[in-house]
């Protein structure tokens, strides 16, 4: 177990290394941070001065060394836009994003687990088709549109919760639901499929042929065996949230997280801050994947150690 864990952590660290290197290549080889941060009509002297100031005149390998060393020590560079360390800004924004993803996971699981189990229990009957309809609808609707519909109905018409921003605990409800519905739609179908497939296993068939009802077989036998799959599926939805939904939903609800920060960084042409945001979100994805593996292994000892 310990050796496996060490191997997994090393693999995750390797992915982080490759990913951050890719980000460096994207920002330093394909683009010119100095030119991007200045207005188009800026003179060549001004650009030269900015390049000098940012240390872009040095050999690329030296810049890369500094970038990598900065990452290890938690230094993500200095934001042009806010004139302060990017790591400081990210640290202020991170809690909001984590809160949003946490809330969304709660919504997702609360909706998806009962719906998925219901669909599997009544396979090919009306509830199964109804759950499929729910899933298809929410997988197909763009989450930012669901966000605006929720705002129109619950914040504008009914005035139950704040329209945007992070004010009071009620403000987290709408963004979490906007993210959670799409994830729940997918998760419910994955859970249904896992249970239906597990029900074909000899032990489940035997249990039912001995007279246990389908629902009893699901709750007392099948559920435990597919529980580790639930963890994986939920983890996948979390990585999806970190990389796509947070940016869009944080913009819709003016939610002060890393996603909104990345969006603003693009508007302000602040390459360093955007780079910091991308590195942190990619790091969260890698960490989530690692956490899934560890959790799976803890829940279900049969999971192979690879």
């Amino acid at each position: 177990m310990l050796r496996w864990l060490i191997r997994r952590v090393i693999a995750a660290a390797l992915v982080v290394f490759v990913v951050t290197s890719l980000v460096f290549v994207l920002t330093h080889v394909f683009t010119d941070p100095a030119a991007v941060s200045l207005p188009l009509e800026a003179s060549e002297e001004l650009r030269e001065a900015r390049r000098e100031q940012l240390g872009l005149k040095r050999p690329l390998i030296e810049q890369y060394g500094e970038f990598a060393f900065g990452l290890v020590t938690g230094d993500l560079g200095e934001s042009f836009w806010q004139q302060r360390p990017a790591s400081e800004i990210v640290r202020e924004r991170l809690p909001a994003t984590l809160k949003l993803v946490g809330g969304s996971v709660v919504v997702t699981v609360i909706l998806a687990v009962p719906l998925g189990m219901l669909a599997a229990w009544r396979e090919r009957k009306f509830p199964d088709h109804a759950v499929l309809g729910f899933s298809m609808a929410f997988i197909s609707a763009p989450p930012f549109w669901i966000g605006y519909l929720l705002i129109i109905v619950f914040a504008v018409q009914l005035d139950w919760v704040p329209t945007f921003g992070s004010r009071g605990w009620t403000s987290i409800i709408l963004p979490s639901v906007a993210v959670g519905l799409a994830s729940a739609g997918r998760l419910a179908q994955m859970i249904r499929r896992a249970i239906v497939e597990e029900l074909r296993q000899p032990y489940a068939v035997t249990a039912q042929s001995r007279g246990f009802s389908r629902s009893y077989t699901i709750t007392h036998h099948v559920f435990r065996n597919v529980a580790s799959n639930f963890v994986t599926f939920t983890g996948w939805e979390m990585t999806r949230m970190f990389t796509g939904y947070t940016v869009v939903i944080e913009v819709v609800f003016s939610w002060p997280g890393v996603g909104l920060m990345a969006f603003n960084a693009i508007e302000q042409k602040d390459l360093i801050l955007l780079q910091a945001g991308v590195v942190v979100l990619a790091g969260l994805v890698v960490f989530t994947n690692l956490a899934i593996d560890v959790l799976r292994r803890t829940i279900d000892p049969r999971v192979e150690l690879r």
Partner: protein
Amino acid sequence: MSPPTGKTPAVNPPTVTDPAAPATHSGLDPGADSGEARTLADLRRHLLKSKAGMAGVAITGLFALTAIVGPWIPFIADPAQQSLPDRLKPPVGWGGTWAHPLGTDQLGRDLLARLIDGARISLLVGLAAVGLAALIGTLLGLVAGYFGGWADTVISSVADVQMAFPGVLAGLIFVLAFGPSVWIVIAVIAMSGWMVFTRVTRSLVFTLRTSLFVEASEMSGAGSPRIMRRHLLPNLVSSLITLIVLELAAAILSESAFSFLGFGVQPPQSSWGLMIEQGRDYITHAWWVVTFAGMAIAVAVLGVNLLSLWLQSFNDVAEREQIILDRPGM
């Protein structure tokens, strides 16, 4: 009916999961002639029995038709015609007139006309992005699966890293570097989708390459490109089409998200995502702009998703039947 899996082919790589699958192609090359006719007739029969499939074909067909003949539909206003006195007119039923059935936007442009106009760009961008991803991904998957060895190691690890590093995030850097444009969006969507095709193609080819018809072809001296083109690719077609339709739904959603953020389609052109971005400031008193634009995205994507759902179930059924039929002879 097999459930939808969104963008997670890792759980449900269409038709790949069954280890018995290659057994169906016992000995003979099932490639071109013998299989085709049976499949098409089967396809129609299967479609007529599936309500979801019919709905998917109908919606996707309507979507494609609107995209193609959009500018020539009669009685529809010019989507670019601005009229400030008519700005933010409500739709029919909420105090509007038939001059603008779905109301007007903040510049007084006819909403229905703009929705019809937006269908084309959504479909074009989606098809271009998925086509690019499928081309690159399938090629790499063929190479990785057929040659194995270090080519497989390199391609598979790159795919793994890409899986952990979502292209959307890298896309944000591209947007900042090169400025927002449709081309960037196409490249970004293709970049975040190619590895799906690589993985499926690789695992299919992996099992196919040991089958008798490939070995026979190798022994008769056919070169690798010929084997890939003539013997492997025809066997991948149904899986690849299913995957392309599945990815198309995701690509249309991604395009709308990028355009909504202002990074995709740019103002003189219109796109559903961009319409939501332009209408968002008016949601408190003009709900229709955002509502109808989003509904267009949702319905189009739903149609494509239903089509993909049905294609997946069709492939599963066809394969299951084939396995059962082949077994006694083996």
